[in-house]
């Protein structure tokens, strides 16, 4: 199905032990113009990741060999590449555990192909958009085009999602963003979705950019509403 004459829109590594699902995912994604690579066990995922250098990782949570959570942590330790989890469980514990281990987004089985493609596009969207300017928030300097964040000349490593979240908040400082608005602007959800995504990623972002994550000064919680950039 992969059209050779189309330019590949991105490279996706699929880690799933169900070969039928992997193949089907591969067919659908190739049909959408992505290049795919399949891995069936958890322990092969990290070497394959290094070799294939994907733009995005589709990761099943329950894997033989090495658990999906551990794979997620291992890859997040060396790369900020977007990770979308595939999970059969939508219960809070599983989802939050997956998100905390570094996944950017998750899709609950059974999902519609369009839904998955929408999620993947939202995560790869950044590649299509030209960076407008540079932003300053607190003592941070954000180079949107260069995709880097600096504090006093020192670069802070952020994943693309965390970067997008920070840029979204910093582009309109003092404006309060509800979790729903953030879900729409950062994750690309059209309908209201799981606000736990926002909570977990705000925590992760704070742990990297705040001097004291317990008392945030850059990403501030507005009780009962959402988040905004800048301290009171």
């Amino acid at each position: 199905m992969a059209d050779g004459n189309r330019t590949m829109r991105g490279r996706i590594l699929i880690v799933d032990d169900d070969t039928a699902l992997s193949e089907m995912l591969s067919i659908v994604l190739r049909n959408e113009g992505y290049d795919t690579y399949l891995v069936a066990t958890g322990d092969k995922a990290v070497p394959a990741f290094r070799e294939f250098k994907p733009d995005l990782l589709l990761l099943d949570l329950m894997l033989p060999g090495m658990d999906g959570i551990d794979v997620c942590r291992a890859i997040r330790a060396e790369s900020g590449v977007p990770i979308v989890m595939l999970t059969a469980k939508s219960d809070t514990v599983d989802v939050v555990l997956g998100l905390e281990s570094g996944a950017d987004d998750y899709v609950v089985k059974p999902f519609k192909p369009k839904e998955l493609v929408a999620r993947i596009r939202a995560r790869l969207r950044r590649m299509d958009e030209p960076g407008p300017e540079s932003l300053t928030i607190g003592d941070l300097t954000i180079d949107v085009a260069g995709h880097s964040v600096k504090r006093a000349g020192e670069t802070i490593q952020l994943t693309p999602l965390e970067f997008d979240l920070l840029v979204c908040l910093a582009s309109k400082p003092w404006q309060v963003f509800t979790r729903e608005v953030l879900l729409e602007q950062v994750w690309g959800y059209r309908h209201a979705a799981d606000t736990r995504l926002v909570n977990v990623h705000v925590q992760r972002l704070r742990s990297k950019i705040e001097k004291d994550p317990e008392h945030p000064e850059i990403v501030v919680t507005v009780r009962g509403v959402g988040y905004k950039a800048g301290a009171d």
Partner: protein
Amino acid sequence: MNVTAADWSAQPQPIWRTHPKHWPDIWRRSIQARIVTGTLLMSTLVLILVGWVMMSQVTDGVLESRRTSAQAEVRAQLAQLSITIDAANRNTINQQLSELVLGSNRPGLYDVLLVPTDQAASNAIRYTGLVDSDSIPEALASSVMSDDSKLWDTYTEINYRDAPGVPGLVIGSQIRINSTGDRYAIYFLFPLTAQQETLDVVQRALVTAGLLLIVLLGAVAWLVTRQVVTPVRMARRIAERLAAGKLEERMQVRGTDDLARLAVSFNKMASNLQRQIRRLEELSRLQRRFVSDVSHELRTPLTTVRMAADLLHETRDQFDPISRRSVELLQNELNRFEELLADLLEISRFDAGAAALDLEDVDLRDIVSRVLENHETLLHRKGCEVQLDMPEPCRAKVDSRRIERILRNLIGNAIEHSEGLPIRISTAYDEDAAAVAVRDHGVGFRAEEAEMVFSRFWRADPARARTTGGTGLGLSIALEDARLHGGRLDAWGSPGDGAYFRLTLPRRPDTALTGSPLPPRPPDATRVVTELVDVGAPYQKLSGGEDR
């Protein structure tokens, strides 16, 4: 040591320390109190009876011997007297009578009283020792007067003119003076002071012994019942702990008596219960786990099938008509399959107790509007009109996702079964509760089916319901969602007159429901099913019987 009020209340209070108003409680709840009180009451009665019998026997014995000796004394005196009197003449009679009285007197032993009858020449009353003539009871006097041959006696109080009265024995007889024909009544008054003292001593001894006995009997009863009641109380405490879920609790077994056997049986029962409960818990856990696992395991292959079907569905225009229709059917049924799986998973989550509320303050009217928006196409297709009776904001702290699911279900069902007739949605609230009711005028259901509509996979009519879709779990989930809120979901139905579902929710999560701001039946319900109602053929059998 400082003892606070809380410390006191933590300990079981002794009976005498508890407030009197709790005593009826103690009486009802404590076997020991009842037995001890009963023993005290009964032994008091028995002792009073025994004491009374003993006392009267002793009294009889003491007095009878005195009476016998007194009578002998009197007879001897009378015999002496009759000789003296016979010798008396008219002139000296007064003198002689006085002497006689004085002469027969035995100071300290008895006193004598001589009373003349009406015919007597001398009507002076003669007496010794200052005894008062009113010491003689009326009855004795008349007895003595009526019979001149016998000795009469009675116990009475002997009064003195110079001293307080004492208990005594009075023996009376008639004497006749042959020379004058006068008759006198002569009374011998024996004071029984010594006897009285003896009896007083005996009585005091009896009362003291009796009181002592009652106290001791009470103590014995208390000790004996304690022996029985203590293990029973222990059994009660342990049974309570077992009931509270502490299945490891067991009674102590001491010896081999009845109580020990009670403890052994009790422990055996507890062990069996524990084993059974553990087994059932394990079974139930396994079953829930199985449902959850099956639902999860089905998801991966379903995802593959879903994606394949979507791919085929998108390219269905290139297929021949038969394949195209097949793909459409596949797609539709996959949708249903997905819904069913999602519902099953939701149910298994409720069964596992894993469902949690995410509360926020919302206006129920907003949720109704949102649901109606979602159902717009269905409303259009069914040609169904919606009447809203939602006059004012109806706010409650609820999980809006779950409430939306309930209302989506109720309103969806109402539209499905509306038969083109308008449906009506009402909201109302009071201090504690908020309610939403959905009324349709479709085919309805029988009164006895009102509870069954919430059963899993229950369908009013299997032949018809297939076409209306739905998973058969919608109302079960709605009911579980309502219960999770501490609310309730009621169904009312009447064949031919439609159905009415009322959702009542507490406005705050910590309040309990006492009623509902909306009536349990629709206000426009007709009592009798008229034949004019156009019911579909499969439902005709329903419209026959019930007319509520």
